[in-house]
């Protein structure tokens, strides 16, 4: 075996084993015919473009689109659902943030009473930065709309803008609380990275295009408005009341995601299952989403809480982590049990 063949076979290990068992020999043959006959002394390597094409094929095979085998098809649908739900969450939070920004500036109704003291002077770079941050969450909404309206390529471009804005906002948080810089960066990074990766991997060339109605595209705005109203009502209660410490851990950035995941898990586990069993897609997607949310809650865990209110919040946080862990395990087991069996390429073509 020549050095080039050996190296190309190594690259082909990116592909799933059943696919490789069917295709490896003819792919090696096709590749070597195109490569000519370089001697080992030249230390030939497959070009990066060839490696990239095999990597892309590997993603498409593992996260199958229309016409794929049932198992990769289920994984593909689950990963695409992770992208949709993740983008929905960020779009909703972007709307919540934007509603707060609009309210602060008094664009609908009177501005906040301490409006002038909270903001930098008009026209100053600080004021412009503050205005830019007000819009920082909206690229997520644009990406979600593009995705559910059947334009995944546009959604991917918009998510790259959203990520830049997302970390711009993290910079602002770091500036405000420098001692929590690493914590904030990690927490925001974990939450944003997964949907972005799921979007890039799941909505590949062979993935089916689905165009949802306009009302689906408007859901994050509606949910964001509802959360904004609830947060407004909570803000009217004194933070010193005992109830506050039980409620607040559910309404920060990962707390809301945790609440939504627990409710979705209860629904996924208990819903009636038509036909011959449940589709594994929702449990698998929710199990994947549990990971960044649980990491987010873990990063917020304050084990050095001294005052009673902080101790209650820590206890709630621990309870959330335990609940997320149980949900993750239940969903993974449910998903794995209902995942279709592996099939070979040959058995599909028969």
């Amino acid at each position, binding site marked *: 075996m020549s050095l080039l063949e050996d190296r190309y076979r190594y690259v082909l290990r990116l592909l799933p084993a059943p696919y490789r068992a069917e295709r490896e*020999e003819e792919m*090696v043959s*096709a590749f070597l015919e*195109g490569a000519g006959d370089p001697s080992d002394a030249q230390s030939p390597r497959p070009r990066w473009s060839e490696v*990239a*094409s095999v990597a892309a*094929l590997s993603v498409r095979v593992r996260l199958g689109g229309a016409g*794929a085998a049932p198992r990769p098809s289920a994984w593909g649908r689950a990963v695409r659902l992770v992208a949709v739900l993740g983008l929905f969450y960020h779009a909703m939070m972007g709307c919540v943030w934007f509603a707060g920004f609009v309210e602060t500036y008094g664009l609908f109704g009177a501005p906040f009473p301490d409006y002038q003291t909270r903001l930098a002077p008009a026209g100053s770079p600080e004021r412009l930065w503050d205005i830019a941050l007000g819009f920082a969450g909206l690229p997520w909404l644009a990406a979600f709309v593009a995705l559910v309206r059947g334009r995944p390529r546009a959604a991917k471009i918009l998510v790259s803008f959203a990520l830049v804005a997302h970390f711009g906002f993290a910079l602002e948080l770091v500036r405000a609380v420098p001692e929590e810089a690493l914590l904030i960066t990690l927490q925001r990074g974990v939450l944003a990275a997964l949907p972005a990766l799921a979007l890039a991997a799941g909505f590949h060339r062979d993935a089916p295009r689905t165009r949802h109605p306009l009302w689906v595209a408007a859901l994050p705005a509606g949910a964001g408005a509802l959360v904004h109203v609830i947060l407004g009502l909570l803000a009217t209660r004194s933070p010193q009341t005992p109830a506050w410490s039980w409620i607040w851990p559910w309404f920060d950035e990962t707390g809301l995601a945790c609440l939504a995941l627990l409710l979705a898990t209860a629904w996924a586990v208990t819903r009636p299952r038509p036909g011959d069993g449940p589709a594994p897609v929702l449990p698998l997607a929710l199990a994947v989403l549990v990971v960044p949310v649980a990491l987010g809650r873990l990063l917020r865990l304050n084990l050095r809480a001294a005052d009673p209110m902080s101790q209650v919040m820590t206890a709630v946080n621990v309870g959330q982590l335990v609940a997320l862990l149980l949900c993750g395990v239940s969903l993974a087991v449910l998903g794995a049990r209902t995942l279709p069996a592996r099939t070979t390429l040959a058995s599909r073509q028969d």
Partner: protein
Amino acid sequence: MTEPAFLVLTALVDQSRHGYGIVQEVEKLSGGRVALKIGTLYGVLDRLAAEELVSLDREEVWQGRLRRYYRLTEAGALALDAEAARLAENAEHARERLRARHAGGLA
């Protein structure tokens, strides 16, 4: 239908071909513009096979290596015909408008 899929189907119209044979024919058909990578080729072949537009014709061993030959199915020929008609119609519309533009410029 994507351009690589269209070119792969076109490459199989006259005869069945193996992987590298398809790569060469696609490059020839596109005037050297489309150089299919092996990973891309097999992704296209998988999709076309799933849609039953191509099928496995035969296997041969050449210089100790496996060659699988693929052929165009009847459904593949119909799909290619429909796509070619659609592209030709688009091209004709473009030509008509360009002729009108040139005629307007000369007048």
